[in-house]
């Protein structure tokens, strides 16, 4: 018997007006694996993650978590499901009216009813996990650099030890050194928790550090999928063009 994937998209379509964004997307991640979805801007990477999170509803197809369809769940069921999920958003999406520790402990405080003292301890533990000085706990997101905000966002995603982690463009807007540090942290955390991870990025270095497997999304479909190490050697024309950054090839550049 084949193993049930942790998360699977089955024939998922999504359109914005007349424009199809996901065009029968089929993709799955095995439990405990880290999948990175690469692809150009506007190819549906963000939409792929948002449909899985229930932040967007696909027009057709199924999204299965542990073999169970999660499309069209009620708000209450969705909330329960989210307790098994951690997300690092592109801009970290920290709540700017709350201190860093309250951000990290947001789920514990507001959904799980953990007492403040205990929640704070767990938040500081999570901050240490992402190598942030506990001294930042009482500062506000606007007082932190972009890299530190990403770290805090990562701490918030892992604090409740989720089964699945989503990373939306984790290195966008960071300098190469900070980006490398974030990549390393992500890969450490995913390994430590044994979580399944789904990331989207157009940063190839990031994809190869975080991912066990890489899938390339183009035109709302997966055009290539393979082990992270094969990214440099495959002769798939889409991947070659993307990796080498050539303007000519099967991917028409629309800029």
């Amino acid at each position, binding site marked *: 018997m084949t193993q049930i994937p942790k998360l699977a998209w089955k024939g998922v379509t999504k359109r914005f007006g007349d424009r199809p964004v996901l065009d029968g997307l089929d993709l799955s991640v095995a439990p405990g694996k880290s999948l990175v979805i690469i692809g150009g801007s506007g190819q549906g990477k963000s939409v792929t993650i948002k449909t899985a999170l229930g932040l967007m509803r696909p027009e057709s197809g199924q999204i299965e978590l542990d073999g169970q369809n999660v499309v069209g769940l009620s*708000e209450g069921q969705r909330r329960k499901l989210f307790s098994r999920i951690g997300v690092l958003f592109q801009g970290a999406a920290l709540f700017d009216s709350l201190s860093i520790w309250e951000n990290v402990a947001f789920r514990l405080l507001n*959904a799980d009813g953990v007492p403040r003292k205990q929640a704070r301890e767990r938040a500081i533990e999570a901050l240490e996990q992402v190598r942030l000085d506990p001294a930042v706990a009482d500062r506000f997101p606007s007082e932190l650099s972009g890299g530190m905000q990403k770290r805090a966002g990562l701490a918030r995603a892992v604090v409740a030890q989720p089964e699945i982690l989503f990373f939306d463009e984790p290195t966008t807007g960071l300098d190469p050194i900070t980006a490398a540090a974030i990549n390393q942290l992500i890969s450490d955390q995913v390994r430590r928790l044994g979580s399944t991870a789904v990331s989207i990025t157009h940063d190839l270095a990031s994809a190869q550090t975080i991912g066990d497997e890489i899938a390339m999304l183009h035109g709302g479909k997966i055009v290539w999928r393979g082990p992270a190490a094969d990214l440099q050697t495959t002769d798939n024309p889409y991947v070659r063009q993307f990796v080498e950054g050539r303007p000519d090839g099967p991917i028409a550049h629309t800029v």
Partner: protein
Amino acid sequence: MTAGEAARKVAVNPIRSLGRSTLAAVRTVGAVGVFAVRGAAAALSPPWFPGQLMRQFMAIGFFSLPVVGLTAVFTGAALALNIFTGGGRFNAEQVMPQIVALGITRELGPVLAALMLAGRVSAAIAAEIGAMRATEQIDAMRTLSTDPFRYLVAPRLLAAVLMLPLLTAVADTIGIAGGWLVATRVLEFNPTIYIRNTVNFLESWDIVSGLIKAAVFGFIVALMGCYHGYNASGGARGVGRATTHAVVSSAILIFASDYLLTTFFTHAS
């Protein structure tokens, strides 16, 4: 394209655009209605977020006191002067205190307090929630198993519905005091008689009906701020648009519902 086709196109297009804008308007009314019901349901059932509610009590209620108080004192004073001169045309200057009291408690207290809140609070709510939408904070909140309707919308609705009547009570008092100041300092009314006339004349319904209006206006102000902020799209410009729409739509809805409520109250009593 022949001249006939062109003419037909011109003739059809206005109807089309009329149809399109009618549909859009109906859709908006429906969306606001659904949003209001969801918000009210979240406000009236647990779990609540007491910390957020306290924060909104301060932001919406306490920090609106100066602007509401200043508006009320000047309006009361100007109203007194106007009614005094107007009443003088048929020798009715002496009923000025009663008319000022009635005008303030039934109409100007709640409406002016609500309008100041539309500017101060509705705009702030729309901008804050709109910016949270733009930076994915609302999505993030949902992924943290927290309902934004409970955490963001409900405390603002509750705080505005409870605080605006209190602010109106303050506005009533200060507005009447403004009239009293002008009457006694400028128009040489007797201070004691002015107050006695006001108190004897006012019925409790004058005040209570104004406070009921204020609760409705409070709901409108917070609802418009939350609705437009929550549905903001398109980055910084979208947030700006949401803020404008929140202020304009709350002001219009305040006036419209003021008329409806006044009609209702007049028939009821």
